[in-house]
């Protein structure tokens, strides 16, 4: 077993891929019986410090329907300078540049350790990165100030040649012109009127019909940048200008009467942002960054009316079909997201407000374009400030940890077909021989577009074994999958990363042990969870749980069932959207944390240790550190809390206590440092109101119902009617047995 664990780990580190099954059942029938589908989690841009990109173009299979990239699994005839494609078996000539090839002189892509390889190609014009800020001005003074500062700060984090633009909105939408000296100039749009891209471009003066026509001159290509440059300027040029502009930004001046929400034209603002980029920089990497402090209250995409007495929709309203703006708004944002994605632009949403901000409706903007979604209480919190800062964080080599406009192409050997993908992507509708008719997630294609991705962005890709039972695969046969990701690197280079993997086929009837042994429980859990979440997004909640119950077993499921990804109880629609958004893009480890939070205990009894996520772990003399991905909770047990109040940590003789208190803080800090988005950091103690974050997550093994635990020192009772893991397992066992019979 150990070997498999190592194998899995090694594979993940080298290729960023984890399969649910690492030995594949060789026929469709058997594969279906396995319940957990053959699928993998792919992190296309997994950070590989040891992987220097090569500076030439990949060699492609010449069959038009294949075009697979030359890889270590290909059979090479060094003498004839031929290679056979391992997907379609086409025999190809090496290009002239490979004339010197031989067994000892192999190009990198043929070496086994380069099952993942990255090419830098010099095709096409290099366009600078584009950052378009879309800023809500209907904020409290304090919030706006904080946001302005964050934005000003961000200018210094951008690459100097990056183009920036600014759109502000409130009741009106203003597109600021950045090139002008003296008078600052902006184009203003009504916040209630949906405009087509064409109209927007006309009104911004971006369309240029008259000029060439009138002059009878041929189109002048240099003209375009000149035009658009009014709104998008290189940071280094308008750095000061923009800083001033941001500084002078006022709160939306339109009066808000008592009992009303401010009029916020988020829908139109986004529409204009999308239209602007669409007209000026199609198909180049660009980020639209939306900062909003409340729900859209007018125009297309409005989520709630401006009457404060009508609260924003809840899950209850949605179930009762009582959310009157939801469908329309969702449609508006979906249209925008699709347009934006089609142009390779991504949309980030930074929503900071105490109430909901309409993430439910707007989620597709981030989900389909690979944009970030950040939810906080205020722009004036470190949660937002640091998260925002982290968007611009740089990798070890000083490169931005972001990439744009990725195009993921998946190729499979004949026995496999592609059922779909789940992640921050949209389909490119590339039909081909390796596309399955059964769809799981976003299917019907072998190519997806990911407008923005970073080193953690992870897609779940589902396959279908199509080999018929009566056509057995020869012994030792291997199935292969190749992932080709073309993307725009943050340095504006165009790169192609190719990952080719292969797994053994096994006959489930004869080699069941092998298959079982190669089962990756963690990957399977996450993959199933993604499927579940994907379904939850599109289907009714209870149905999904039932589907999951029918499909699954095992530990994770207990927590998954209780997680906010599937349970909407106690979560607002915005929160659910937020959690699901992140779940659908994080890598395996993070996903696992999300499903089953990690709990560490710190005590004088020994070094920090992971403990069961169970109420029995809550003891008076322990400090607990829980990481749920979205929250980091430090919980001081009853006794510890009392000690702390008594001030023992300040006494020199109790320095060890001080260290004990400090240890979880340090660990938490470490997590905070690396995670995006920044988790909510909670420091609480026994009986503290915020302890609820911990109590709601742990397995309620002791509740007010099983009184035997009362008075014992073994943890804290949870006041809940939820079943505990014990009960769940008992029930599950019963079910398993009965269904087996």
């Amino acid at each position: 077993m150990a070997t498999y664990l190592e194998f899995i780990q090694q594979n993940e580190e080298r290729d960023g891929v984890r399969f649910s099954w690492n030995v594949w059942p060789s026929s469709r029938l058997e594969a279906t019986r396995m319940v957990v589908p053959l699928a993998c989690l792919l992190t296309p841009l997994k950070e590989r410090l040891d992987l220097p990109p090569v500076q030439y173009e990949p060699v492609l299979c010449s069959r038009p329907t294949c075009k697979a990239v030359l890889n270590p699994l290909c059979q090479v005839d060094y003498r004839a300078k031929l290679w056979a494609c391992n997907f379609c078996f086409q025999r190809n000539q090496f290009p002239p540049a490979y004339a010197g090839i031989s067994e000892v002189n192999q190009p990198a892509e043929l070496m086994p350790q380069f099952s993942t390889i990255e090419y830098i190609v010099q095709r096409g014009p290099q366009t600078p990165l584009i950052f378009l800020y879309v800023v809500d001005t209907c904020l409290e003074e304090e919030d706006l100030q904080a946001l302005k500062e964050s934005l000003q700060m961000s200018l210094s984090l951008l690459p100097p040649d990056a183009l920036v633009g600014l759109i502000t909105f409130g009741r009106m939408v203003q597109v600021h012109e950045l090139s002008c000296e003296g008078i600052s100039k902006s184009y203003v749009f009504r916040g209630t009127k949906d405009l087509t891209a064409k109209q927007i471009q006309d009104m911004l003066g971006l369309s240029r019909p008259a000029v060439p026509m009138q002059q009878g001159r041929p189109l002048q290509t240099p003209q375009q940048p000149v035009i658009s440059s009014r709104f998008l300027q290189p940071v280094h040029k308008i750095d000061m200008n923009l800083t001033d502009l941001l500084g002078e930004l006022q709160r939306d001046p339109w009066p808000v009467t008592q009992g009303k929400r401010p009029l916020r034209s988020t829908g139109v603002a986004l529409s204009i942002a999308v239209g602007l980029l669409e007209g000026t920089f199609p198909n180049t990497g660009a980020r639209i960054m939306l900062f909003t402090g409340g729900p859209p209250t007018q125009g297309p995409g409005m989520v709630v009316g401006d009457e404060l007495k009508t609260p924003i929709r809840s899950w209850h309203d949605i179930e009762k079909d009582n959310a009157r703006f939801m469908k329309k708004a969702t449609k508006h944002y979906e249209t925008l997201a699709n347009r934006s994605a089609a142009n390779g632009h991504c949309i980030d949403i930074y929503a900071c407000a105490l109430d909901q901000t309409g993430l439910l409706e707007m989620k597709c903007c981030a989900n389909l374009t690979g944009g970030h979604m950040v939810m906080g209480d205020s722009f004036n919190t470190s949660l937002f400030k640091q998260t925002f800062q982290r968007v611009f964080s740089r990798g070890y080599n000083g490169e931005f940890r972001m990439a744009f406009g990725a195009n993921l192409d998946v190729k499979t050997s004949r026995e496999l077909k592609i059922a779909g993908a789940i992640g921050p992507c949209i389909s490119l509708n590339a039909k081909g021989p390796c596309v399955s008719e059964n769809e799981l997630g976003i299917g019907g294609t072998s190519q997806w577009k990911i407008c923005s991705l970073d080193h953690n962005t992870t897609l779940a890709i589902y396959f279908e074994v199509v080999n018929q039972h009566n056509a057995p695969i020869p012994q030792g046969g291997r199935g292969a999958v190749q992932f080709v990701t073309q993307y725009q690197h943050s340095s504006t280079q165009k790169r192609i990363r190719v990952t080719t993997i292969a797994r053994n086929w096994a006959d489930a009837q004869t080699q069941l042990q092998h298959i079982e042994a190669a089962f990756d429980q963690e990957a399977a859990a996450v993959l199933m969870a993604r499927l579940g979440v994907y379904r939850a997004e599109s289907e009714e909640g209870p149905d999904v749980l039932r589907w999951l119950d029918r499909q699954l077993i095992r530990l994770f499921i207990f927590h998954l069932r209780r997680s906010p990804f599937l349970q909407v109880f106690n979560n607002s629609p915005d929160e659910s959207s937020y959690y699901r958004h992140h779940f659908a893009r994080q890598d395996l480890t993070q996903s696992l944390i999300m499903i089953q939070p990690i709990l560490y205990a710190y005590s004088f009894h020994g070094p920090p240790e992971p403990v069961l996520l169970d109420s029995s772990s809550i003891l008076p003399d322990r400090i607990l550190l829980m990481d749920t991905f979205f929250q980091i909770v430090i919980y001081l047990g009853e006794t510890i809390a009392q000690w702390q109040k008594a001030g023992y940590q300040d006494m020199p003789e109790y320095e060890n206590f001080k260290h004990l208190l400090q240890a979880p803080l340090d660990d938490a800090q470490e997590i905070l440092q690396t995670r995006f988005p920044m988790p909510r950091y909670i420091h609480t103690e026994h009986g503290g109101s915020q302890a609820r974050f911990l109590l709601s997550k742990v397995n309620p093994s002791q509740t007010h119902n099983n009184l035997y635990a009362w008075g014992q020192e073994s943890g804290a009772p949870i006041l809940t009617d939820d079943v505990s893991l014990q009960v769940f397992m008992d029930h599950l066992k019963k079910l398993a047995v009965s269904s087996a019979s």
Partner: protein
Amino acid sequence: MSVNQQAHTGPPYGQPQPGYQGYQQPAYGGQSLPGVPQAQYGAYNGPVPGYQQPVPPQGSLRAPPTSGAPPPASGASHPSGHLAYSQFEHGDVQNGIPASAAPMQRPPASQPFLPGSAPTPVSQIPTFQQYGAPPASVQQLRNHMAGMTIGGTAASAPPPAGLGYGVGPSSYPPTTGAPRPPAMPGPPLPGQTVAGPPSSQPNHVSSPPPPSTMAGLHPGPPMSGLHGPPPPTHPPQPGYQMQQNGSFGQMRGPPPNYGGAYPGAPNYGSPPGPPPPPKRLDPDSIPSPQLNELPPQQKPRHRIDPDAIPSPIQVIEDDRNNRGSEPFVTGVRGQVPPLVTTNFLVKDQGNASPRYIRCTSYNIPCTSDMAKQSQVPLAAVIKPLAALPPEETVPYLVDHGESGPVRCNRCKAYMCPFMQFIEGGRRFQCCFCSCVTEVPPHYFQHLDHTGKRVDFYDRPELSLGSYEFLATVDYCKNNKFPSPPAFIFMIDVSYNAVKSGLVRLICEELKSLLDYLPREGNMEESAIRVGFVTYNKVLHFYNVKSSLAQPQMMVVSDVADMFVPLLDGFLVNVNESRTVIASLLDQIPEMFADTRETETVFAPVIQAGLEALKAAECAGKLFIFHTSLPIAEAPGKLKNRDDRKLINTDKEKTLFQPQTSFYNNLAKDCVAQGCCVDLFLFPNQYLDVATLGVVPYQTGGSIFKYAYFQLETDQYRFLNDLRRDVQKEVGFDAVMRVRTSTGIRATDFFGAFYMSNTTDVEMAGLDCDKTITVEFKHDDKLSEDSGALLQCALLYTSCAGQRRLRIHNLSLNCCTQLADLYRNCETDTLINYLAKYAYRGVLSSPVKTVRDALINQCAQILACYRKNCASPSSAGQLILPECMKLLPVYLNCVLKSDVLQPGPEVTTDDRAYVRQLVTSMDVAETNVFFYPRLLPLTKADVDSDSLPAAIRNSEERLSKGDIYLLENGLNIFVWVGVNVQQGLIQNLFGVSSFSQISNALSTLPVLENPFSKKVRSIVDMLQGQRSRYMKLIIVKQEDKLEMLFKHFLVEDKSLSGGASYVDFLCHMHKEIRQLLS
């Protein structure tokens, strides 16, 4: 005149003025001979038979009858005066002409002919003058008339004579001869009498002859009577001509010629033809009184002596002399104020000053039957916020406390001097509806023994005709006190505007102009806030909030759905945002310096201003500076629909109508918000003033038009207009209602405003120059005892945001005798009303219909007088009421105006512009607009402050050797004769010769010599009197531009077919006679 003529004919006349006769006759003959004139004449007669008829009759008349009777009269009456006059004339004329006295004289005569059919009139005039000479201007003698007519005929002859001058005797004889014979015998003579002369006589004065005439005359109004030739003469039109000829003939020629003469007759027109025309009669230059007298001499020459028909100049002069010296005290009911041309002070003693209200008649018929019979329109021309001279006090502001002004319970009339307090002062009876209302406790006051309140003199509303009330919150929109109004400057920055330098000019000017926004009373700074917008096919708003370091520009390209992009910082206090505004105004010209945008929008601009005011919840005014037809894609987009082919068709009215109803709706919205629009237009081509003007017009705004704007020549004029427009007193969000005594009712309103119901005149803005003309109709009987009262109440927001009511009260007499009505009319006001009525008519009826209706109404007015008030006399006499003797000449001017009779050089835009302009003119403005003021500059007394005496608007009056100034409220022409002394040219223009004078001058050069100073001070004085800065145009005689200038010589026949004064007078006479018969 007839007399004169006779005299001429006969030796006696000749005796007095031997040379003269000789001249005339030859001239006459000459004229007739020319043949050319004939054509004109013929044309004249031909086209308007009516005209001809009168004319001929005159001629005929003259000859026979006149000769007999008239001569004596004229001779008798005039003898002394006449002689003197004649001498004068002669002297003058000759003097004036010195070099070639004869030629000089001729020209004038001939000229009149040339221009139009004028000649005849001219001839008549002389006769007229003669009469006039007789001093007793007022009285006319029917006899005179008769004589006149005769004279007229004779006069008719004279004109030719004028021509004849030039021609020479030889030719003369034949023509004259020919006509005569027939004339003599024929009845035609009477017809001739028609000629104006009689009328003029009355005006001028009575003369000795009067005695006889006197008898015939009605005591009251003088009338001029033209003898119409008895019907018999009329029948044959040809006969008329014949007659004319005949008359001529009488004068000179032998009958035999007649035949030949006949053709000659047409020559009448020809007179102009004669080469001599260039010369002018100096007589004109002579002081008016003399002029009047001069006629005698002329008479002999012409059929109708132009000087013998009623002269506006004389009337104005007389009024000035008679009434200009003493203040006009308004205490008496139904008192006719002095003319608008007279400078006088007003003392308010219970009636509103004529500066606020002028009526067509100050004595109203008691019954509607009477009113209908007279056809005199009952109208008041109201200028509620009129500016007063510094010597007069502005209306006092009265505060009646929280309960608001005291008003009648029933009709809601405001407390005024005519309210009757009863029951010891506890109640008052409304003077309008007779309802009795309790006096509110806080307003109670005891009465003295005469029934007057003890505090009568302490309360303006009890003792004055005009005063203001402070309005309470009930009088405010939405029951909220208004915010101070705002001015928004909206500047076209399209290519044309930038290139012409206009944008820069406006921005520069605004920088200083903003310090002169209207202030209330003695406030430190103006409460008015300002905002700025520039636009081409998109709009740019500017945030000029004081806290900003730099202004911010906000572009709105969504013109289809206009909105205001900002609230805070758009409308600002000038002082607080001074630096930001200055910076903005500096940068605007730079920002658009290289614009290539040629298309503009218009409606969205107004919408933007409207929305801005709405958002700021205040009233205000938009100053829009616009250059071109708005063809960019946007609401209110217009297309070029200028089509001159429509002129004189039934579709002509469409040229005055807006292209689309869009602007009407927009105007309605503007009025509802109190958004007044002032439009400054700088077109280089057609931009559809008729449509663009809808909003300014209906919101009480103004339009200023500077065609082919050029920085060098037009900037001064534009800037002056702009300054004045920005600085002048203005009220916002105004509603005006006119209440009247039971018996009459305000039924119709003319002016720049909007009405949503039938009684309330709503104006988004109302400035001190805007006038509303209100027409009244009877709905019951009035009584002579109580008279008729008007109360005009204007509710408005002052420039500081104070809600006020301005009340003007006026009491009028009522009459049961038509004579009383005619004695208390005011022709200037009448013309104001008629012009506005006609100018509105062109929107819905063909222009010809409108013109005919005008003529018809005036004919009825005059016929009614003739029938009911004038003493019985020959039907051939034209008798005009003293108060209306200028009606024909002024009416003719209205009929000839660009709107009603456009010449080829008048653009569609000009007509629409003038049409709207006239609609809100006051009486003084219409007066000078229709009958321009013509001043002989070379006659000005360099040492005094006074203006030189004006002369009549006829080319005949111009002398080649003089420089004249003509102003009509829009333009000032400086006309320079070809023979002007070099010294004068040097002094005035700083160049050494006539040919070096530049037409391009827009101002007179500043030269340090008395003449230059004097002329410039005259120009400045005139500019100061007008609400708009007039365009100065230098016209050199015989230059291209002279055509333009001649257009304003309104007594002459106009190129576009307008009749000359004399011809028109004849025509009127014919109309009247037709009505009478």
